[in-house]
């Protein structure tokens, strides 16, 4: 099936098998491997991307379902000059990643959370990333990073 998807601002038209998951289309079809796969039950969130600005688990959507829509992956988050998005910067500052495998999904989930809730408290952050598993960090520094990104955005706006 021919479909068009805008990924990180660039439009890609391709012939895609109807059963292809969005995450596989992004990774294999478009060649952006930053988005990871960590499970097969929609449980881990490693595959989280933004679809028209909202976080989704790209392992749970067929590519052809999002024909004509727009996706942002971890590769499209930093500014054109390479400046990290405040959430990316906060993850680094607070050591919110270790092996990095959950990180692209976790960062996208956090970006989406802060778009919906610019001023979350700790509980809200924990609930907001509940669908994203991290096996390395114990979540402590991820939570710190998201809280600090929230106050940075607050300060900057």
């Amino acid at each position, binding site marked *: 099936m021919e479909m068009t998807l805008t990924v990180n601002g660039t439009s890609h038209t391709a012939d895609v098998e109807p059963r292809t998951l969005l995450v596989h289309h992004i990774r294999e079809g478009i060649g952006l491997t*930053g988005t990871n796969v960590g499970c097969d039950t929609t449980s881990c969130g490693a595959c989280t991307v933004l679809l028209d600005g909202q976080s989704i688990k790209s392992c749970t959507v067929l590519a052809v379902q999002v024909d004509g829509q727009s996706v942002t992956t971890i*590769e499209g988050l*930093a500014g054109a000059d390479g400046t990290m998005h405040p959430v990316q910067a906060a993850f680094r500052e607070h050591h919110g990643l270790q092996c*990095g495998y959950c990180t692209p999904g976790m960062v996208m989930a956090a970006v989406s959370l802060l778009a919906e809730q610019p001023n979350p408290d700790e509980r809200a952050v924990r609930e907001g990333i509940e*669908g994203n598993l991290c*096996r*390395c*960090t114990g979540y*402590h520094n991820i939570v710190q990073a998201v809280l600090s990104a929230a106050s940075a955005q607050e300060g900057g706006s």
Partner: protein
Amino acid sequence: MSILGNRVLRVEDPKLLTSGGTYVADVRVPELDGAAHITYVRSTIAHANITGMEVDEARQAPGVLGVFTAADIDLGVPPLLPMFNQAMARPLLADGVVRFVGEPVAVIVSERPEQGADASELVWPDYDPLPVIVDPMESARDEVLLHPAAGTNVVLALTYGEDPNLFDGCEVVVSEDIVNQRVAVVPLESRSAAAAWVDGRLWQWSSTQNAHGVRDVLAGQYGLDPAAVRVIAPDVGGGFGAKIGVTPEEVLLGWLARRVGRPVRWSETRSENMVAMGHGRGQWQKIEIGGRRDGTVEAYRLTILQDGGAYPNMGALLPWLTRVMAPGTYVIPRVEVASRAVVTNTTCTVAYRGAGRPEATAAIERAMDIFAFEVGMDPVEVRRKNLIPADAFPYTTATDAVYDSGDYEEALDRVLEGAGYQELRAEQARRREAADVVQMGIGVALYVEITAGPTAGSEHARVVVDVDGSATIYTGTSAHGQGHDTAFATLVSSRLGIPMDKITVVHGDTDLVERGQGTMGSRSLQLGGSAVFEAAAEVITRATQIAARLLEVTPGEIAFDDSNGAFRVAGGDEPGVGWPDVAGASKFDGTPLAASVDFQASEPTFPFGAHLAVVDVDTETGQVRLVRFVAVDDAGRILNPLLAEGQRHGGIAQGSAQALLEEVCFDADGNPVTSNLADYAAISATELPSFELIAMETPTPINPLGAKGIGESGTVGSTPAVQSAVVDALGHLGVRHLDMPATAERVWRAIQDAPSGKGA
């Protein structure tokens, strides 16, 4: 000023945060162009004879390049560790018998991954079921043998300090049967590997903790010289012990690549990972502890039955480490440990964060709690009374471990003070008095564990300074999230005065790093870091000689400034020479400016700490919530607090997860019932609080950095602290022990069955 001891941000992060890591499945190199995909067909039955296998239909399926079974494979069976019963060795594909659900019975090579998945539905094994053993106790009776040629189900039996009169003279002796349940490792990246034959050499990309170890295993399996195998560990998405060894699925890749004449790629699904990579823990323990009514412990016996799974793996060896650490932080004059590891029709058990030490700590800490309960003392006071005193180090335990350094009472004091122990007890008393629905539990655990062990370890490093003044560090460790690039670059930067951004760290490639033993057992900084540190020192020594020649003085007259990397004539005001000059002169002489060091430790090291957990237990529903976690972890001198804290956080989370909710289960027929991440309760952010960390540093004399391992400590201490807190919340009802995990159902039942009736 030195950057050692500072919170240096990670150099790994910008790439991981902006484009994502390069894990095996992301590797795009010419050698893997046109790679075929590998799909394993796995047993759906726990124990059976394979009486036939229909593969023709699968062979005809679209995109299929080959379907192979045990009959096709002409690689040998990998040998077991020498201490195991060799008649239990595991074939690469099940050969005539399947012994656990998830064991590979056939393998498919296809153009595309989904074609392999489709074809796997067309492989039809015929099974003739055999009796299934899931329970290790049943296995130990040897009534049904999993490996008849072995003559027994026991893989390895060990005894230490056997003494039928161990408890003679004790005023109080208490015992309890406890289960250190099987848990899943769940690195977020499942197993993944790729293989290609390049100019007659086998190249393998592997998601591993130990590239050189993989190389040696593959060389052995393929009858190749190790130099004819190149193993590359790109970014690795977590390991936690389960990626130390080499699994059959990975060993076969080179054979398959040769057979189809193409490179091959393999990435297992999570559902495969949950049944086939290996699980952690799985110890059935009996604890017996005896002593005086005043709280003095005199004797301790630990009897272990280790579930090894279907084929002996690292798991079967864990009781050995459990034995070493059995007495924990306490002076216990008489200790006996007896262990047996047995096979069952379940997934193999492997090393998992802590590997044998959390099991030891959980046992002795439960023992201290039940002993305190029995003699009617505060569990903290019983512990304090029996701690190894600070002036006793180095201290040799009754199990022959030599603890290098420590101050356990100080760790205990710090955690009690940090948590406000007295106030917590007062609040608990208030809630008990008021018969609150939500009761509070407080758990305190002390731990000491062995790192860079079990015997004295070594590691390799090479430091090279180039003519442009940059440095490259080659290390035999194999980071998978620990931040070695940052840690080792910091060490070299501080010694050589070369800025961090001019230092590159190379690891996990056997063609680039001469030798190495990988990252496991909390060994990397203390062994690998010490090697880097000493290699840097040797580079300075060599460079000083060259600088002396260039400046026409003797080496003794050269002063090296480690803040900027300048070599000057001491006392003079000449500008001197820098790294580019000396590296250039060295190169001109025909030798690169470099030093290789194999650091050899004289002993393992023993980090320690005290953890305190506070839980709320809803006595109506049994729901447990971990509300506070306070930790003192002393891993000797800390190089980078940021990295050390990250390790502690991760360890505490994994340890708490075991105490609170994680458990791998099989039904009586050996079917896994927690075989994906929807059914297995991997801990999430909402189930944990933020952690309150308290610093403590007691350097070790064992290595030049004064550092001990920190990677596993969090796991070792947190499990018993949280478990103890849950039991403590029910203590006033007469509950003395509760196995893990503290699910709402288990806690609710314990409340219903409690000696003092229902609820508070």
